């Protein structure tokens, strides 16, 4: 079964120079978990996942610790500033380059496998290097629900 029918054409994208604050707003207003980064011609440059986005606020060394279950308070680190006006990042700094993509002719199974392997819940759909839509796990669920065998 092809994914073409379930690809979302009404999606939000940002340009490489879109500031951090605007990206934050798109995430909470739309509830999307992945935002594609394109230029004015619609060419896909990368994606920003909400997980990568949140890493900005985490100190790097957290990666070194297997679990944080034993920490009730991070002490001096609790003073971390969340003032996003002060953060000068733009979309280009945050995006994952050469992201995984699907094509409209791809199957449901290929879509599920790709999302699973890249630990994403949403993925760009392209024709050549142009972004044509986005497909999420929720879209695939709808496809499965409407499937007639």
């Amino acid at each position, binding site marked *: 079964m092809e994914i073409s029918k379930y690809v979302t054409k009404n999606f939000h994208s940002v340009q490489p120079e879109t500031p951090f604050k605007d990206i934050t707003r798109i995430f909470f207003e739309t509830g999307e978990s992945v935002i594609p980064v394109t230029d004015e011609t619609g060419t896909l440059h990368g994606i920003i996942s909400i997980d990568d986005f949140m890493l900005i606020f985490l100190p790097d060394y957290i990666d070194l610790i297997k679990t944080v279950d*034993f920490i009730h308070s991070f002490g001096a680190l609790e003073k971390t500033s969340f003032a996003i006006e002060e953060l000068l990042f733009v979309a280009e700094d945050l995006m994952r380059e050469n992201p995984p993509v699907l094509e409209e002719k791809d199957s449901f199974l290929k879509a599920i496998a790709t999302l699973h392997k890249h630990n994403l819940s949403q993925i760009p759909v392209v024709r050549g290097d142009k972004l044509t839509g986005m497909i999420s796990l929720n879209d695939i669920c709808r496809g499965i629900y409407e499937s007639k065998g």
Partner: protein
Amino acid sequence: MTTQIIAALAVFLASYVLIVSERIHRTKVAILGAVLLICFHIITQNEAFEYIDFNTIGLLLGMMLLISIIKETGVFTYIAIWITKKTGGNKWKILLWFSLFTALASALLDNVTTVLLIAPITILIAEMLDISPFPFLIAEILSANIGGMATLIGDPPNILIGSATGLSFIDFLVHLGPISIIIFAVTIVSIKIIFRKDLKTGKNDNEKIISGIDETKVIKDSKLLRRSIIVLGVTIAGFLIHNFLHLKPATIALAGGGTLLIWSGADIEKHLKEIEWPTLFFFMGLFILVGGLEKTGVLKWLAELILNISDSMVVLCISLLWISALASSFLDNIPFVAAMIPLLARITTTLFPNTQGLDDAAYHAYYIQHSLPLWWSLALGACLGGNGTIIGASANVVIAGFSEKTKTPLNFKNYFRYGFPLMLVSIILATAYILIRYFLI
């Protein structure tokens, strides 16, 4: 020089240069070098396998198995948090006790595993207390290498020396333990003086901050922890009496690893995957490469050359100590020690020939006992030399990698400023120790 000697030397030197340059993984080079010796008919395949010291391989394998299970218990993180709470957040006390813990753990386990487990929690605690992890990480590097020097199982050079000489765990502890304690004390006091400004504890709410960590939640499986501690304890007791039991250290280590694998119900596939196979294969290749030099007579020729310069034991010991230390500061100390061992054996057999018609085993024990200061000089130089630079030992490289995630990463330059002078101080102390203990008293 025969073609065989030239070929053996060429393969050995080319392998050595490639290993030191780190352009190609050292294990790949060692395996290829060993195979080339067989292909060039310098040694036979059977001889190649005979050159592999399976006591060293078994000891490393047994300890790796044991550690792969122990590290899952979270005991290191637990102890680190417990220490922090006991010190009330006092920076100097944290540094002192973390260093002591690192040194002790390195003496009983391997240095790399110790720092792999202690460095992340050190960085976390330092960041929580809003202090730079820099002096703590430097202290841990130095402590890991000094602690590792104290025992037969603490550092790979000691494992190699112990296996080749037949010296026991107790021998290492008795001869290298006292100087390890002295060097550790001097190093930690020096660090306190060097970093006095960073370690000053002002008025702050450190105690309140550290109460935000709950060490009891770190231990996920207390049954596994209990069993691991029992097996580790029995294994260490086994090392202490292995000579009385007439068992090699490898047997003790493999018995410990095997017992814990069964008793913990651990997944064998998972733990075998965690074994550092590249390290084990590196050792195997290296033994064969050095074996090639031994067989072709290169080491005999080199030993005679050295003895022509000086056959005084004092001169040999002190030169060996300093050359080993400087070489190990910049190069991997494992291939260095692996090559030095048969060379020293040649030198000592020339110095102490078998004039009494002793059998092989008795003669081996005889010349080792007469050349003890030489072996301790090699161990001291190779282990302490690792403290000289950030690339001097594997533990240093691991900590430097972790420090990249902090605001003050360790690099060659900023580590060298503190590590190299402290390494020189330790070698001066080691020189005094060798002279006083083995030549003046």
